[in-house]
């Protein structure tokens, strides 16, 4: 059984078919990348998976459960969490609080009496996550003054705090320097290997895609163009024509 699966998924905005009859599957513990030119429907697909958009047609299943009509917060509670393409953090809160409040979501928050700072287990979990995304030293900095790369790490940290089973990362290395990209790629690889997370990734940086993906899905004009291993995809003529450019002899 596929871990995450879509069946004939469609999202139409008036006449525009942003996502059109997309069928794709992700196996548990896999890292699957989604590539394609701008406007191919990658972010729309992500928004459908995370619950921001309701599909026009089609279904989405997670661990066999139909999550098509569920709202974004419900889907997060079920175990699918996404990061945002443009960093979407809590600007005036500290780095620590950014992650802590996300971690708090797994417990009931309609608790009006306890001191929030006294939830020790949540505090511990927060520190561990900050260490993993290498922001532990900045924990009491205000999030808005972080560098771009650090904010991207914080994004990942906030998502991790929700104990996700499946992580949707929307262009996690966008805007990063080459050095930062290498580190980020390693981090993402660790998330799959050490934390056994299933990861779906939207990426433009092919070096990242080739390095860590188990499977690659190529979208074009809302439809699935090809799906396969990184090698297969990079050799695929249509993918080359539409997106990769150049011809690779395979």
């Amino acid at each position: 059984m596929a871990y995450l699966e879509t069946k004939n998924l469609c999202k139409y905005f008036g006449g525009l078919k942003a996502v059109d009859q997309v069928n794709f599957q992700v196996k548990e513990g896999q890292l699957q990348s989604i590539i394609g030119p701008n406007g191919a429907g990658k972010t729309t697909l992500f928004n459908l998976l995370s619950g921001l958009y309701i599909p026009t047609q089609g279904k989405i299943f997670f661990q066999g459960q139909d999550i098509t009509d569920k709202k974004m917060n419900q889907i997060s509670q079920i175990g699918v969490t996404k990061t945002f393409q443009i960093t979407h953090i809590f600007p005036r809160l500290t780095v620590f609080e950014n992650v802590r409040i996300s971690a708090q979501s797994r417990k009931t928050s309609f608790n009006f009496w306890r001191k929030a700072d006294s939830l020790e287990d949540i505090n511990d979990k927060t520190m561990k996550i900050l260490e993993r995304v290498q922001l532990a030293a900045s924990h009491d900095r205000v999030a808005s003054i972080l560098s771009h790369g650090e904010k991207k790490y914080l994004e990942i940290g906030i998502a991790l705090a929700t104990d996700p089973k499946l992580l949707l990362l929307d262009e996690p290395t966008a805007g990063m320097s080459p050095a930062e990209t290498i580190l980020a790629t390693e981090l993402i690889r660790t998330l799959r290997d050490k934390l056994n997370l299933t990861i779906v990734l939207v990426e433009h940086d092919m070096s990242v895609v080739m390095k860590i993906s188990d499977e690659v899905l190529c979208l074009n004009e809302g439809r699935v163009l090809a799906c396969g291993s990184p090698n297969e995809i990079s050799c695929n003529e249509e993918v080359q024509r539409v997106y990769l450019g150049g011809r690779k002899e395979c």
Partner: protein
Amino acid sequence: MKANKENTSNTRTRSRVIWVTLAVFLIAPHIISTPLTTEILIFGLFALGFNLLLGYTGILSFGHAAYFGIGCYGCGIAVRDFGFSIWGGLLVSIIMGILLAAVIGAIAIKKKGVYFAMISMAVAQMFYFMALSPLKKWTGGEDGLKFIPKLSLTFPFHVDLQSSFPLYYFVYFVVGISILVIWRILNSPFGRLLQAIRENEERTIASGYNVTMAKFVSLIFSGLFSALAGGLFFVYLGYGPLQTLFWLTSGTILLMTILGGMHTFIGPVVGVAVFLYAQNKLSWTMERWELVVGILFMALILIFPEGIVGTIKVKYLARKTAAQEVGEAE
């Protein structure tokens, strides 16, 4: 890069802020006019309730006079027409506040900020007009709620509400407890959730929170305390003015909150104190007091949106950070 603890965010409020405030208000009526300090306490509670919604959750209500007025009239009518005790009257205020907040929340809480601001303003205006004319029989119309018997407290012991000091300390007691309760709420997991919603609502939803419910509950608390303040206002005045429902009351509470600092806990109370004190001293001498107030408000928004306490906090933290860095360098 500079280490920089929370610059303008409320996040946590030290308990000493609360104790200092309570201590100050314990002795204040002996230093400045007792009626004025009583009003400061009452409007301070109103402002804290208001800021729960604005400064913490990030929702602007332009019609909070509705809660204040309904609390005032509710307490008054309960006492005058139904023979309730003062405690009973205040309880009625609280219940009315909760009910009104629930209704407004059910209709408008999902809406974008500007819509909520407009709808809340319209609802308050509706109550104002209702009290003015169609419901004149109960509310006294323009004259307000009058013919109130002399108020007195008999439980748990007799308090003569006709003299200023006992009245003050009664109000102090109720407001003091409310401040402690609000403080606990805002420092709790729920309080943090509200701030996350203010900072980035979409991200909060994406992390798994039912944000609509949280906003709804926040509105309930806000309405509750604002209405309680209205009830206290009735007890303080011994009558119920129509002004409590007027849009200027909504505007004034907003002004006082911003003046003090909406991103701090105690800022609103400071704003109330400064404004009411200034109004007390200056509005008699100034023909155009409201003009001055309007200009000051605009200047606040343009230049010092963080208000008195907020600006102090930023400057203090900036200096502390600089000192820290010097210390680290050595």
